Structure formats: C-alpha cells, structure tokens
C-alpha cells in the first residue's frame, strides 16, 4: 500500500512540474491589442510615453495598449530581455531602439522589417532631414522610425567658475578649452573638467574627436576598415589626453549625474554630456544661465552630433496592423510634439511647432539649432555609427587607456577595432 501512495505523490509532483512548465507561454491575448516594448520607466521618459499611450488609446478605442517597458538604465536590461524574446520568436509588436547601427545586429539576424513603404506613405523622407535618413539607413533601407533627437556634443559650464578664473565665455576651440582649463586650475579650487565612469569618458572622446577632426573626417571614421592610424588622429588623441589630465581623480566612482551636478553646484568648470543633462538640471532646480549654461562642445559649432530613440516593426509582429498605427502616431508631428517636451528632447521632424518647447530654454535653443539646418554627425557611443561589437572594442580600449595611460596603445587599439569590422 505504501508504495502506491508514493507513486501517487510522485505522479502528482510530475504533473505539477509539467503544468508549471507549460504555464509560461499562454498569454497571447486577443486580436485587438498592440504590445510596445521600451525601457522608458521613469522620469520624463515615462511621462512622454504615457502621453503617447493616452493619445493612441483615444484615437483607437478598440485597441488595447500593452506597455511592455523593462526598467534599467539606458536599456541594458531591456536589451537582454528583448534578445530572449526575439530569439524565441515571440517579438513584441514594436520595440524601442537607438536609431542607426545599434539596430544592425537585429537587421542582420532578420528580426526587423524594412519600413521604406511606410516612410513613403507617411512622407517621412520630406519631414526628416535627408542626412538623418541617410545615416539611419542600412543597405539602402530604413528599419526604424525616429521619434526624437538628443544632442551629444554639448559643453555644460558654470558661469560663476569661469568668471572667477577670468575666462570670458565658453571656449570655442579645443585650444581655448585647454587654456580655460589651465586658468581654472590656477585661479580656482574648482575641477576644470568633470567626468564620470568609463562610459562618460567614451562620450567625451567622441566630442573631442569631432572637435579636432571636423565633421567630415569624423563621419568618415565609421566606414568599416577606415584608417585611424593618421597624424590627425594622433593629434586628436593628444588633445584628448590633455583634457583628461584636467579631470578629477575620483571620476571612476561617479556616474554622469554626479559629474554634471558638479557644474551646476559650482564645483567644476566644464562637463561634456548629452542634452539629457538639461532635464537633470531642471530636476535639481538649477537655474539656466545662472547655475549652468551651455554651448556646442569646443570645435563643433554648427554640427549636431545626434542620437535618436526610434521604434521598429519586428518580423512576425502578432498585430502588425496596429503596430503600424502606433508607428504612424510616433512619426506624426502631433505625436512627436506630445512626446518630446515631456521627455526633454526635440522632435526628429523638421516641422515641429516651436511653441511647444518655448517654456524650456534649452529645448528652445536646441530646436532652433536643429531647424537651422546644421551639419549632422552620429554619436558612436550612443549607437548611431557603430554596432555593439565595435562600440565595445572602443570602450575596452578607452578603459585600458584609463588604466595604463598608454596613448599609442589606445590609437593602435582604435585602429584595430576599425579594421576588424
């Protein structure tokens, strides 16, 4: 008798295991929904997304909107989750990604549908700057709809520290920057250039390269097999080394917020960071032009080094029709003007309504600059010009440089990274 009880128990356990194993997959929902995947789960990003969702639901009352946002800074967690879903052929209807080469892996793996027809129907070739469309194209096709534009090459500075150091206004060239940093070092207790953890040094590097090489030469760096072993590059890296010599010792233990905050607190003269810092300064209650001010990073006036969040259409999206409705909203002037003032970025379209951005001094100036037809350069660190592999190689080279300060090895590693692509 005992053995029978045991076997019943074992059978029940086996059954329970079998049931729980099956339980994961059965959440397929109805026909009328659209699932959108992003990493916008906090602050202005979430507020912007929610405003878009509200608009979508008002316009499409029959369609249920499923917000599949995964928390985690700049999407690293979300990307791991997404990778799993795409590999198991369970894609969301649309997912967020940085426009440009960062999507290349997905495109090569055949996860994304080209959106050329969609771009034609929606007139996006007219609405978006030609150079932008060209920089996000992969083998002649576009695969994502850019919803916003952030700028990477912004120099944030503390007017009070510059005044104390006797520097008139923000430096316009890298040579002026170095002079200004030397003056700050000599005249004040402030840190000349605040940086944070390794990735913010990558961010600084791209602005220094753009400022030193010029827009055209910078853009040419990202052709596979490009020559990085040139005298111009060596000079740019020497400038980079000089800038790094004026950063604070404890930078590795700080993230971008702490580094940016040193500027608005008057503890540092300069910080080069993307324009999301403006939203952070707002949160801190810092006053523009008083606690902090901005300019294009030295040597890059007239060039907009951009990055962009965009939405895609995966192959096998379960509700493709509704996904296209979502992309239509995201691409539209109204959609972008709803989202961007909240997120703290400017729309990718050139026909945005400036009135929506008038309350925010930074966004107002950024939009004016975007609409005045600047030259464009893609941010490598934020995935516009290079795929993840190349980007990681550069990050490793920069990290090793921070350890051993061997500039020649850095140049060699950067050159190698371009060759292996």
């Amino acid at each position, binding site marked *: 008798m*005992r*053995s*029978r009880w*045991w*076997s019943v*128990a*074992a*059978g029940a*356990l*086996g059954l329970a*295991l079998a049931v729980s194993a099956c339980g994961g997959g059965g959440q397929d929902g109805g026909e009328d929904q659209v699932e959108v995947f992003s990493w916008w789960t906090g602050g202005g990003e979430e507020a912007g997304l929610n405003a878009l969702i509200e608009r979508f639901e008002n316009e499409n009352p029959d369609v249920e909107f499923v917000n599949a946002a995964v928390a985690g800074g700049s999407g*690293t967690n979300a*990307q*791991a989750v997404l*990778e799993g879903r795409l*590999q198991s052929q369970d894609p969301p209807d649309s997912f967020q990604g940085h426009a440009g080469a960062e999507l290349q*892996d997905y495109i*090569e*793996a*055949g996860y994304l549908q080209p959106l050329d027809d969609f771009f034609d129907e929606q007139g996006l070739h007219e609405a978006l700057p030609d150079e932008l469309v060209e920089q996000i194209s992969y083998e002649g096709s576009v695969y994502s709809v850019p919803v916003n534009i952030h700028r990477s090459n912004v120099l944030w500075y503390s007017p009070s520290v510059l005044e104390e150091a006797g520097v008139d206004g923000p430096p316009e060239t890298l040579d002026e920057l170095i002079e200004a940093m030397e003056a700050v070092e000599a005249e004040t*207790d402030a840190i000349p250039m605040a940086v944070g*953890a*390794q*990735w913010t040094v990558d961010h600084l590097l791209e602005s220094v390269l753009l400022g030193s090489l010029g827009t055209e030469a910078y853009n040419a760096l990202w052709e596979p097999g490009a020559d990085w072993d040139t005298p111009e590059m060596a000079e740019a890296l020497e400038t980079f080394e000089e800038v790094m010599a004026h950063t*604070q*010792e*404890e930078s*590795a*233990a700080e*993230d971008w917020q702490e580094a940016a905050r040193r500027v608005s607190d008057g*503890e540092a003269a300069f910080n080069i960071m993307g324009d999301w810092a403006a939203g952070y300064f707002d949160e801190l209650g810092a006053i523009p032009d008083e606690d902090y001010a901005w300019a294009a990073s030295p040597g890059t006036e007239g060039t907009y080094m951009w990055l962009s969040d965009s939405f895609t259409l995966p192959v096998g999206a379960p509700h493709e029709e509704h996904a296209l409705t979502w992309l239509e909203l995201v691409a539209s002037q109204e959609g972008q003007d709803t989202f961007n003032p909240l997120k703290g970025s400017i729309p990718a379209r050139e026909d945005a309504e400036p009135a929506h951005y008038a309350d925010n001094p930074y966004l107002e100036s950024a939009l004016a600059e975007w609409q005045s037809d600047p030259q464009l350069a893609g941010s490598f660190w934020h995935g516009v010009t290079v795929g*993840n*592999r190349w980007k*990681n190689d550069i990050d*490793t080279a920069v*990290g*090793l440089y*921070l*350890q*051993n300060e061997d500039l020649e*090895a850095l140049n060699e*590693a950067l050159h190698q990274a371009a060759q292996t692509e």
Partner: protein
Amino acid sequence: MSGPATRPGAAEGGTGPRRPTRARHGSRGRRLRTRVRSWGPSLLLVSPSILLIGIFVYGMIGWNTRLALSDQHRPTDEGSFVGLDNFVALWQEARWPAAVNNAIVFTVVFVGGALLLGWLLGLLLDKGIRGEPVFRTLFLAPMAVSFIATGVVWRWLMNPAPAERATGLNALFVHVNLDFLVNTWWTAPDLGMAAMALPAIWQLSGYVMALFLAGFRGVPAELREAARVDGCSEWGVYWHVVMPRLRPVTLSAVIIIGHMSLKVFDLIIAIAGQQIVADVPAVYMWSTVFEVRDPAKGATIASYLLVAVAVFVIPYLVWTMREERSEGR
C-alpha cells in the same frame, strides 16, 4: 545497480505487484519486489530532479562547451568546430589577462582576509566573551545582506575623492587627522581589486567565524586540559592542540569563499559598474554575451570560469566523500 531489476521496478512501483512474476520466479521474485519496494518509490520521486538537472545543468554545460569550441561569433552564424582556438585567442588580447589578474588579486585578498578575520573572531568568542550570542549574531548578520546592497553602501564608503573633497571613509580619515590613509580605493590601477575585496570580507568573515567557532567547540575539553596539565601555555594549547584539528574546517572555508570569489559579479557591478579598472571574468562574460552578442567567446569565458570553480570544488567533493566513507556513513 543491476540493470534488469531497475526497469521493471520503476513500472511496478506504480502498478503494484505482478502476480505471474512471483509464481514463476518464487523467492527470487520476492527479493526483487522487496528491493523495488524499498527504493523504487524514492527513485520515482527524485527522477524529475535528476531529469531537470541532467538537462539544465549537465546538458547546458555540454552545449556551452560545444559553443566554446565553435566559431559562432554572431548569433546568426552557423558555427563550425575550431577546437581550442577561442581559448587561446582570449590570452592574446589585452582585456582578458587584466580581468584574470583582477580576479586573482580579489580572490587572494578576499579568501585570506575572510579566513584571518573569521578565525580571529571565532577565537575571541571561543575564549568566552560575555554576551557571546549577541556578538555571534552581530558578526553573522552581514551575511543576510545581498552583495548588491553591500556594494551600494561600500561604493559610498570607498569614495576615492582626495582630502579636499573627501567623503565616506576618506572623510573619516581626514576628520581624525590620519590624512596619510586617504587613498583611491578600488580605482587604483594595479591593486585596486584588493580594496574591492573589503566589502566581501566584511560580508563573509562572520560566516567563516561560525565555521571556526564550531571547529573550536569540536575540540574535546579533555584534550585541552591534558595539554594544560602537561604545562602547555594557553597559546600553546591553541597552536599545538586546537589548530591541527581545524584543518578540515579551514579547507571547507577556503573552498566556499574561493569559489564565490572566482564567480563574483554582483558586487563588482554595484560598486564599479562595467569598467576595465574593476573588470573580472564574469562581468566580461556578461558584456560579451548580452552587449557584443558573441556566443562562442562568451561560452569560452564561461568554460574558463567553470574550470576555475571546479579546481576548488572537485577536491572538496573528493575530500568529503572520503571523510564520509572513513566515518562509515
């Protein structure tokens, strides 16, 4: 395991005794049935976990090894067999040896520090301190904290800012006029990982203490008495009588701490994030798999990690099995 006996056993456990068997085989059948009754049900009960472990642990190790021996450097590649090429290639780049070096520095300091401090705390408690249970709990408490939480706190404590902007421990040093102690902690290029081991030591020395305390208590009082009667000093008692009997405890402590140390990931991420200065193999593997999306290289790093951990764990398993056998269990 006698082959034919197990298979019908599994089935019979469910359906009960089969009469014809008994009629034909007489006493042999009865013996078989008794044996089946005694361990058939337990086999059935553990078979799901054997199956799951077989697939999800050993199957996956096999799959990982196959991947590490292939050239599937993109998720979409087919991948063909390339032998040990990936294993060799890792040593030719700059990042991997640096990460291995960091892991070694971390492990040496972490294991040594936790052992020394744990031993010292155990010794103090063994000497009969008042309120021993309170101290025991206090020392053991950090173990209940996750490495992530420990990391967040120690990231602040070990802020590397120089004296004029000092916070955390550096500020404390400045405050008590010990400015020469102000240092750059884990951000120091070569031996920074030694500082990274401090939070880990803080977290696990209480556990090592508990192990040693049990070891100390396991030494019979008569032995110590006998030594004292023979004129041995109190230190002599510890050195000549107690310590030799702690070897097994020390070994298990080294193994447990050592293998935790080699696969450390969360503590590093919480304190340093992904930076070369604090790079270790587990972090490198994570960025290779999830950011670069290079399955073969990620699997290679995973294989090295497995081997490194096995170096610690396998002798331990062999040793415990031998122990158990000698104790006649």
